[in-house]
């Protein structure tokens, strides 16, 4: 009667291992995220306003850029084949040039068509996509860019807080300067958020607040106040307080 034997043996093993497996998993879960987070924590983040590390331009031409966007496989194809790699690497443009204001707003600011035309009235005016861009501008229609990142309504995500805490654009959006066509770099799932917000050994957001009381008494005049984006890092370095709240109500309300 070996078949039944085997069945039973298997059943017994499962039953005994279940609790152990569970214990390992549950206790393991935070650790796992922790290691990742620690990893990102150790690597020295560039100060936000530094330029993107100059890379040797690959000598890509505008036509190549357009082709590269159209031939790219990942991410949605855009109505105008805008090539991020080309603009950031070849032309050395900064994220903030087009997406400035994100550090003052809960949402990421999309460049106005006006801004594009600032250059493209002249630059590449003869290119077909640029002419289409021109067409939009003249007809007074906005460009219907394809959305790449979309959070559900029940998540309140302040870009501003993250930028001012010196979270790099690329931590969430990836190396956009190497994308011919922007694709969704991160899952935006809650666990993914917690990878950063959850720092084992580090203290939670309330501790940040407490430390503020001790370390940063309200200055008399506004101009004496901490330069934007500086204090959270100092808190991290000096007191190991975390990067953000893990409190549900910080994002869900």
């Amino acid at each position, binding site marked *: 009667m070996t078949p039944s034997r085997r069945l039973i043996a298997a059943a017994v093993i499962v039953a005994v291992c279940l609790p152990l497996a569970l214990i390992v*998993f549950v206790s393991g879960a935070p650790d796992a*995220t922790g290691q990742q987070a620690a990893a990102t924590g150790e690597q020295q983040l560039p100060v936000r306003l530094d330029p993107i590390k100059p890379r040797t331009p690959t000598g890509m031409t505008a036509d190549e850029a357009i082709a590269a966007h159209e031939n790219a496989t990942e991410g949605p194809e855009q109505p105008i084949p805008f090539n991020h790699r080309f603009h950031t690497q070849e032309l050395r443009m900064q994220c903030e040039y087009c997406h400035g204001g994100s550090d003052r707003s809960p949402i990421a600011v999309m460049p106005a068509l006006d801004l594009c035309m600032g250059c493209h009235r002249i630059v590449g005016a003869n290119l077909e996509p640029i002419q289409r861009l021109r067409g939009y501008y003249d007809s007074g229609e906005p460009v219907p860019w394809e959305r790449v990142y979309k959070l559900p309504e029940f998540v309140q995500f302040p870009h501003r807080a993250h930028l001012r805490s010196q979270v790099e654009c690329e931590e969430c959006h990836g190396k956009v300067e190497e994308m011919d066509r922007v694709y969704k770099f991160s*899952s935006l799932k*809650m*666990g993914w958020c*917690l990878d950063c917000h959850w720092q084992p050994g580090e203290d939670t957001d309330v501790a940040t607040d407490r430390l503020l009381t001790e370390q940063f008494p309200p200055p008399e005049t506004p101009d004496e106040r901490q330069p934007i984006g500086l204090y959270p890092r100092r808190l991290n370095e000096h007191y190991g307080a975390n990067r953000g709240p893990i409190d549900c109500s910080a994002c869900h309300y």
Partner: protein
Amino acid sequence: MATAEIEVPTQELPSLADANRDISRPISTPYRRYWLLLGICGVLIAAAGVAWALQIRDGMGRAGINNPVNWGVYIVTFVFWVGIAHSGTLISAVLYLVRSGWRTTINRTAEAMTIFAVMTAGLFPLIHLGRVWYFYYLVPYPSTRLLWPNFRSPLVWDMFAIGTYFTISLVFWYLGLIPDLAGLRDKFTGLKKRLYGVFSLGWQGTVKDWSHYRRLYLYLAGIATPLVLSVHSVVSWDFAMGIVPGWHSTIFAPYFVAGAIFSGIAMVITITIPLRWAFGLDRYITKYHFDNMAKLLLFTSLIVGYSYGMEYFLAWYSADPIEMQSFLWRGTGFYAGPFWIMVFCNVVVPMSLWFKATRNSLKALFVISVFVNIGMWYERFVIIVTSLAHEFDPSAWHVYTPSLTELTILVGSFAWFFFWFLLFAKTLPTISIAEVKEHLAHEHEHGH
């Protein structure tokens, strides 16, 4: 030892072969009446299904519940069915432990009832969920949110208690079935043989096997007994753990357990009487069994009645105006009707069981048991709804009346229960053949 007292004259004793034949006789091609009943159940279930579907589409608003009264017929019926589920394991397990032989012929039916009642009850927490499509949030599984259920919540306790109860009852029931299935396997041929063969796991009743079997059966009876008590205690804690006046009471656990056994026994009686008649099992389910069940019914009725009184006594003695006003309103206010129905059905009617005549009249017994079933549904209604309708802040008081959707689903739940029971009655022996034979054998021995 009750065994000795079976008042069946020896010459009428069926032989072991008779037992096999008689008890498995119903397992045959059914009559039209059977299909009719099955069909009616099917229709009612379908109706309830539609009602539920509409509720999921439109929202809980289709039920009559409102702001102060957030729980209504659904939770009432849930508790009702969980209560029904209790007699089964009680009769099999507890009576098995105390060696009261009269359980033998009814424990199979009672256990089946338990299984189906839990299957019915288990639906209601889902039906009453505002966003049932997210029910898996209640299940402890590793998710990307790193979030788990809140094990401090009585609702989660409830989930585990009911789940355990269902599983253990199922094992208990199935274990008892195995030898009988083997008997059926040997009786039939062809497909039936194949099927019963598979489920009997190749049982051949060697004495070694019987020894393991008896051991486990004993253990199961042993753990099922505290389980029965714990399950309905946990159910009662869904309310007792709340601060609602009329819920927040320490007597709830025993009170609910007694109530559960009360309603369970009643349901067993309600079912076995027609069953006995329909399948001609008069020689196996005798007056003697009903007499014992009636006594148990009377006893639990007394406990339940005592609890009703005790609730009022506590409220009065506490001198807490809120408690007092709540209980005063319960008996005199908008819901006085349900309250007095409850008292009449659960306390007044069963008192007739003091008389042997009533206990021995199946008709009377049947009527009384139906009364008790109704009364016990109302008991849960009174406890849940009246307490919620008049809570701490008088300005928030508001009453509740069930909606058509709720009633349809309530009726559907009965159909669902009897649907399964009908299937059971036609496919499995409604009495534990092996145990009956064990008895008869001893009788024959005595007879010699």
